């Protein structure tokens, strides 16, 4: 059986590379397309059996256009079709991946492709969420120390006193301490703390 031809469409190359490598290693013929304006031609020339695209990729509309205007182009069969496996569909959406499959390709051959895609997208997402979390924490602790030094400087408080003052205000306002710190760090006057 000839190897399935898979076209990966994604704006963020970082998200694409591990998936491409994973699919390559499974013996599929994989090409990647990063630009919307080239996608049309890419689909026409490479004639993929399957196109895998991120749920939130703007290029999905370009694919839709191809599907409707050209009968022999990739057609969406995975999402929301009556005969699709609802579990697989839900997993694909949650992972942020959609696949478009040419009519007539055996669904059984698609499933492992999707499984790999889903796993890769999930791994990528987890990595990024983790990174975003770490960045946010870093940013917040920077704000808190800025706010603390301003309180120490302008109100003559000790470090524990400054922190305590922020925490008390945060509890009173039902805000997170980082929100209070941001306000302290950026406000013109500190009257609101009174």
């Amino acid at each position, binding site marked *: 059986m000839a190897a399935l031809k898979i076209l990966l469409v994604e704006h963020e190359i970082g998200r694409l590379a591990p998936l491409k490598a994973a699919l390559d290693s499974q013996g599929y013929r994989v090409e990647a397309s990063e630009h*919307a304006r080239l996608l049309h031609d890419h689909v026409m020339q490479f004639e993929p059996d399957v196109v895998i695209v991120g749920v939130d990729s*703007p290029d999905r509309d370009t694919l839709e256009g191809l599907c409707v205007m050209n009968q022999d182009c990739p057609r969406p069969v995975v999402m929301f079709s009556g005969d699709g496996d609802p579990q697989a569909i839900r997993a694909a959406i949650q992972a942020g991946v959609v696949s478009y499959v040419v009519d007539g390709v055996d669904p059984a051959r698609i499933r492992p492709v999707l499984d790999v895609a889903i796993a890769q997208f999930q791994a990528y997402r987890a990595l990024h969420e983790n990174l975003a979390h770490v960045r946010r924490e870093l940013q917040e602790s920077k704000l808190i120390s800025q706010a603390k030094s301003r309180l120490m400087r302008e109100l003559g408080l000790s470090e524990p006193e400054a922190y305590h003052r922020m925490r008390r205000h945060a509890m009173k306002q039902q805000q997170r301490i980082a929100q209070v710190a941001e306000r302290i760090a950026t406000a013109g006057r500190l009257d609101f703390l009174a």
Partner: protein
Amino acid sequence: MNDEAKGQTADRGQQQFTQKTMGSSDAGLLMGMVAPGIRSAAWAGGSDKPEKSTVNIGFIPLTDCASVAMAAVKGFDRKYGLTITPSRQASWAAVRDKLASGELDASHVLYGLVYGVQMGVGGPQKDMAVLMTLSNNGQGITLANHFKGKGVTDGASLAKLIGARSRHEPGDPGRGGAYTFAQTFPTGTHAMWLYYWLAAHGIDPLAQTRLITVPPPQMVANMRAASMDGFCVGEPWNARAIQDGIGFTAATSQDIWADHPEKVLGTTREFAERYPNTARAMIMALLEASRYVDTLSHRTEVAEVIAGRAYIDTDPGTIEDRMLGRYSDGLGRTWRDRHFMKFCDDGRVNFPYLSDGMWFLTQHRRWGLLKQDPDYRSVASGVNQIKLYREAAAQVRVPLPETEMRSSTLIDGVVWDGSDPKAYAGGFAIHA
């Protein structure tokens, strides 16, 4: 023409809107203070409390998403017991799928797309619902600057150029060396405006041009990269093309059809049936927001809000001019457009006219997206939630029209009044 349609032909004038509007948003404010029990007397039985009080409403970064944004920003949602979370989407395909999966409860969406899904064009069929129309006008057709050098400034001169090319390339139906035009979704409004405009000038869009689909925020970048010769899209992207010095406005969508229906508040039939109170509350909040956005003195503020990163992410100036009807075409002509983007117009914009819904079906039929004539009227009656709309509009004192059809004359002089959709759909010289 039947009597109902005749009454419509006059003009979408004040006489159809018999109920007088109360000044500004006072009416809504008053209604908001009336006890819920009294308000609910308008519809039979039960509580009018939204069954689902938090709703995700999708939108695509476009000027006409303004009422969805302002409903949340200005707190019109909370007045009706709702919390609206506007949710920015990257593609119309995502809007469609997330409506179907329930991830979005409703969305700012292309009128034609809702009907495409209803008819199962290009994908699975799903029963859909239009709760109200969100906007009229304010889309446009941009041509790339290279056309200036070829003497093309409008539809007529474009037809002359394309006609001449086809004649010089015998055996080539035009696709090979054809110009590339982009629209935003195959069943959507921009595809229909673009095809209608080209055909009105004698250009067969399917045979003489190469058509591609590109999401609105990517239009300008794609034209800059020289892969596209023209596009049809909503503002602010036509204005942005002029600002960036890459194209000019060859036509506005209101040139094609003055006060045409454009975006709707769309959801699934299942949602509308399962959560009627929520649907009604959404309509009420959006009607108030529409009225707010339609007040010209608010539009500078609105432009600033929707220009923000959470919405369109562009310079407010790019949005504001055309939102206020101040147009320039990038070829030196400037004008005040009477048919600029409208959001309420005393309810003329918002009523989900059956004839508006049917029009998209006639064009889907014309361009071969539908292989057969559907039962136009019955499809539109199922999709457009006129009953829910009437109940909601009465609550917020937005005037209602007397009839469910309206009459318009389009750019080619053909009148559309919804009276004979099958004959209308089949009556165009240029078609698939």
